[in-house]
């Protein structure tokens, strides 16, 4: 006996030494009466849930609690702290797994429920992490709110509302749908299997995935990214929405490889620039591309080292990075940062939100963001820069510059080789700093509109400016005009609630390398 005990101790020690863990399982079985139109609510953060409809007027619950812990102490702690709660009355039955807040990460628990209910009962399930959630043969309404796992709705004839984040959602209709289904997910794929002779209205929406079906869809149309269509004669609406996943609606007897995309094969769909969100997702990574490069995608991460031609990129969201473009460059994004290198042709870059960095715009161009920073290292041609909120920084410009931001600082540095340059800079909240060479000549018109004239000021290293102050409502306008170094192009600066600084500096010019064709 002693030998066996010693062996057990040695075995346990060895298991602990090698990081093994213990698991223990306990089962609880309960039965409760329930009304035929009653509801069953199950709240189980960790573990699977099976709800099976049948006959009778009783709810039968079997709960298996499986605890995994590395040692006996953790096991006991887990066992003492995890509880099951059965509450309610025949109208509403609530069954919950009770977990301690801020639990010890050393142990894990999976509580698996198998619940048998009368077919007509309504079901509501809450879950965080489940291997699966399965609801079968239920005619009552079903609501599922989960985070991760596979949800299987099998023979559910009642109305259903499903909301998941990750995982997969499968609807398997035993007969044609007779009630509405609202299926929402973030990253989950949605698969729906229906009898071939089904009649229903279908609404689908996805940003990143595709919308596929083997049914013959009548009256297909897109409203933005939302697809509408009718199957058979139409009927109850099945609404399928997943942001990053795909939607697949299959007629039973067909398979996924036969499915057609509603995005690409929509009969009425004529590609136009504004429907970028209907294009499939793309991830492009190329060291170089010879010829004109075109990419249009709903969500695209594009990285090309060198485009030996023109570049045209249109994306709904994503990150765009181009090393060098030998021709014209046209990049439009509804959101995401743009990182552009040496652009030798004209540049047009716009993003709905995000920073834009341009190493060199040799021919100049237009760069706009609805919110974000704009940083241009070298502007060789006339440029227009617009930000809906964010700083604008130009390290060297050699042609006319027009910069405007709703809120942010504007810092512009003129090419020291240029004796005069046309500049327009405007910020509705922020400062303007204009650095030019000591011999820079211009007709200056600089205005500050401020509520705090003691703090905001106009400073310049040049002589020849006349400064006037006047009260405009509750604000003070500081207006400086005049010619510096005998005059030149017009330099118009306007800052609200900020400073304007025109400084004379000996600037070291930035030299661009000559590209190898």
């Amino acid at each position: 006996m002693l030998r066996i005990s010693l062996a057990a101790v040695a075995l346990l020690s060895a298991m602990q030494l090698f990081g093994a863990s213990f698991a223990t399982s306990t089962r609880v079985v309960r039965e409760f009466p329930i009304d035929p139109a009653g509801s069953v609510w199950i709240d189980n953060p960790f573990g699977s849930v099976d709800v099976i409809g049948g006959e009778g007027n009783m709810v039968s619950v079997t709960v298996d609690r499986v605890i995994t812990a590395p040692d006996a102490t953790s096991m006991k702690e887990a066992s003492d702290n995890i509880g099951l709660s059965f509450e309610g009355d025949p109208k509403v039955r609530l069954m919950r797994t009770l977990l301690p807040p801020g639990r010890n990460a050393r142990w894990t628990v999976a509580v698996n429920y198998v619940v048998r209910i009368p077919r007509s009962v309504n079901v509501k399930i809450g879950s965080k992490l489940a291997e699966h959630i399965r609801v079968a043969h239920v005619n009552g309404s079903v609501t599922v709110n989960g985070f991760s796992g596979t949800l299987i709705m099998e023979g559910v004839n009642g109305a259903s509302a499903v909301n998941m984040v990750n995982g997969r959602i499968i609807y398997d209709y035993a007969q044609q749908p007779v009630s509405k289904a609202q299926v929402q997910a973030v990253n989950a794929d949605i698969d729906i299997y229906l009898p071939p002779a089904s009649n229903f209205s279908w609404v689908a929406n996805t940003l990143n995935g595709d919308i596929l079906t083997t049914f013959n869809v009548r009256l297909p149309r897109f409203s933005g990214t939302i697809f509408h269509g009718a199957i058979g004669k139409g009927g109850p609406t099945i609404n399928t929405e997943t942001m990053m996943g795909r939607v697949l609606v299959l007629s039973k007897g067909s398979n996924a490889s036969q499915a057609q995309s509603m995005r690409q094969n929509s009969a009425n769909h004529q590609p136009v620039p504004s429907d970028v969100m209907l294009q499939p997702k793309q991830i492009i990574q190329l060291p170089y591309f010879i010829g004109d490069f075109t990419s249009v995608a709903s969500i695209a991460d594009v990285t090309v080292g060198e485009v030996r031609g023109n570049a045209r990129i249109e994306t709904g969201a994503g990150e765009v990075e181009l090393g060098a473009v030998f021709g014209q460059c046209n990049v439009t994004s509804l959101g995401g940062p743009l990182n552009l290198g040496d652009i030798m042709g004209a540049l047009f870059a716009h993003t709905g939100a995000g920073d834009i960095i341009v190493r060199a715009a040799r021919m100049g161009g237009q760069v706009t963001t609805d919110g974000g920073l704009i940083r241009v290292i070298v502007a060789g041609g006339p440029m227009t820069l617009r930000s809906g909120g964010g700083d604008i920084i130009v390290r060297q410009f050699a042609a006319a510059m027009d910069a405007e931001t709703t809120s942010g600082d504007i810092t512009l540095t003129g090419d020291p080789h240029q004796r005069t340059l046309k500049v327009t800079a405007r910020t509705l909240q922020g400062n303007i700093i204009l650095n030019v060479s000591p011999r820079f000549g211009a007709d200056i018109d600089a205005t500050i509109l401020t509520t705090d004239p003691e703090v905001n000021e106009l400073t310049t290293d040049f002589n020849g400016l006349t400064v006037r102050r006047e009260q405009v409502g509750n604000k003070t306008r500081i207006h400086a005009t005049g010619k510096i170094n005998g005059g030149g192009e017009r330099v118009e600066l306007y800052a609200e609630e900020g400073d304007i600084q025109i400084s004379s500096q000996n600037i070291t010019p930035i030299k661009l390398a000559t590209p190898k064709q």
Partner: protein
Amino acid sequence: MFDCDAMRENMPLLLTESLDPVQREQTHQHIETCPICVAEWNAYKETWLILDTLPEVAVPPRVKQRFLAEVSPAMVKTNVVPFRRGRTARWLAQAAAVVVVGSSAFYAGHRVAPRTQLIPTEAQVTAIQPAAPYYSIAESRVLPAASISPQIEGRPDIQNVQFSDASPLNQQIGVSFDITSHVTVTGRPTDKSMVRLLRYVLENEDRESPSRSRAIDWVRATYAHVGNPDPEITEALANVLRNDQHQGVRIKAADTLQSLQSTMTDGTRDALVEALKNDPNPAVRIKAVEALAKLARSGVALDPDMVDTLRRKASQNDENVYVRVKAAEALSSIQPR
């Protein structure tokens, strides 16, 4: 509280009758109405009396000579004629000691953050500690003329000069002024004093935008290479993200937080969630969601509010698509706990 601080600064001058009549009256009135300052004032007076009763000890000439040689070798002259300290000298020493005690207390009170309201207790002097060898960066200070070098170098920018000669009887005059001095503080990025100084620069600078923006750039460049930067740095950036009206500054603050996430506190994460929920600038929301996505990928447990915010952002049809995509990416990395 502000009044108390100002009044305590005045106490040494009140004791030496160096305040102008208006300030003297104000200080007396405040002391009469404030129980904390009454205790403080009593302590000052008690200290003054103790100093008055201390015996005079003559400094041995050799000690004095060595001391002068240490502090200013040029001033050491062998033909110095020793003199006996008179009553005026002792009076000055008492005033200087009170100023030192007062300044130390003022410095200590300002250095401790957050500020705590103490329960009033009767002040008692148990020991007089020498002043800490710290250079205090304070809004205002009172210095005896003897502590200022007679050599004024570098043409300091002195403004708002005021003179006071409260009591013609005591031969004391006062010159008050604002001075802009250039101070360079050197140290390691992890030194607490350096962290506190940077936090102050980030949070409190009045002439905000260009320098705060530059400060954030500098903080990012510096602390990106420090293994575990002090959480006070990320908290300061979080406060900038919450409070700065300048959108470009908020974008930079959120971006920098992303690169310093190893020391993010709960408050810092809350600031990112708040920015993701409410900031009107989509670029700030992008930086915030990117920072949260990076946190999620690193395996940090996100609290339910963060997960809920990400979930709602991912599904919000009128949100920028890139923000939605990044929120969805963050959610895909989260393992529920």
